[in-house]
């Protein structure tokens, strides 16, 4: 039976694969990019939790708020970490990660969500590629939000072992 630390290896590896996928898709398909970034952050966070030694596999894997908690906890420690970005970057990253988390199908339920279409209260069908606000924001060519987010996640990836022992 594998222990939590061994599970963390798997979560971290898959987070890295999700992040690479997101980089390939980029802002050309913002809703797919958003899904992959949500998946990457969630798995980075679960890998970090499983490494903590203070949480069971069930608790870690069933969490829906792990990613935003990880970024919020990291922000508190940011002066101890290798530079990941200025205050603006941390603020933007936390805002996007929270928005992606809220759009996770398990949390958004009947509302606007990643991956799947949904029905509005007025009975109209909408879908993420056209209607998901956070995906539109990430795909906005006037904004560098998607680039900042990838850079932020890449720095977490590169420094993961140093941040979360």
């Amino acid at each position, binding site marked *: 039976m594998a222990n939590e630390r061994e599970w963390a290896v798997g979560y971290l590896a898959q987070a890295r694969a999700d992040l690479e996928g997101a980089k390939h898709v980029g802002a050309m398909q913002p809703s797919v990019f958003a899904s992959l970034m949500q998946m990457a952050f969630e798995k980075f966070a679960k890998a*970090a*939790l499983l*490494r*903590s*030694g*203070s*949480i*069971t596999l069930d*608790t870690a894997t069933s*969490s*829906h*708020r*792990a990613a*935003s*908690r*990880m970024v*919020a*906890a*990291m*922000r*508190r*420690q*940011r*002066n*101890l970490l290798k530079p990941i970005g200025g205050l603006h970057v941390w603020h933007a990253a936390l805002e996007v990660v*929270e928005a992606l988390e809220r759009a996770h199908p398990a949390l958004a339920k009947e509302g606007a969500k990643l991956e799947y279409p949904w029905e509005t209260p007025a009975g109209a069908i909408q879908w993420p590629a056209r209607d998901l606000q956070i995906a539109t924001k990430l795909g906005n060519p006037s904004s560098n939000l998607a680039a900042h987010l990838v850079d932020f996640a890449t720095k977490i990836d590169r420094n993961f072992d*140093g*941040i*979360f*022992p």
Partner: protein
Amino acid sequence: MKPIFEVALELAEAHRIEDPETQSVFLAENDNEVRLVEISGSISNSGEVLPFRFAAHPEKGIPYASVVVLLSVDDWHRLKQGDLALPPGWGNPEGLKKIA
């Protein structure tokens, strides 16, 4: 080496500066690492107690690993009522020491 309590106070102060909406910081006493429970108005309710463990940074005056649990005010009340629990080995909420 500095005692854990002193490092905990320094971390609590740094974290409050980073998140001015932090209302309270508690220490779960432990001989090997700094275990902090922080309650903040900037944290949304989740019903989850998630401990993130960070590496020690002796070169920056933090010679111990630190573990941070962030809670919303509501989740903190739920923890005190027994609807949520601290991580295994952290004791119960009554045993936490308020340090900020």
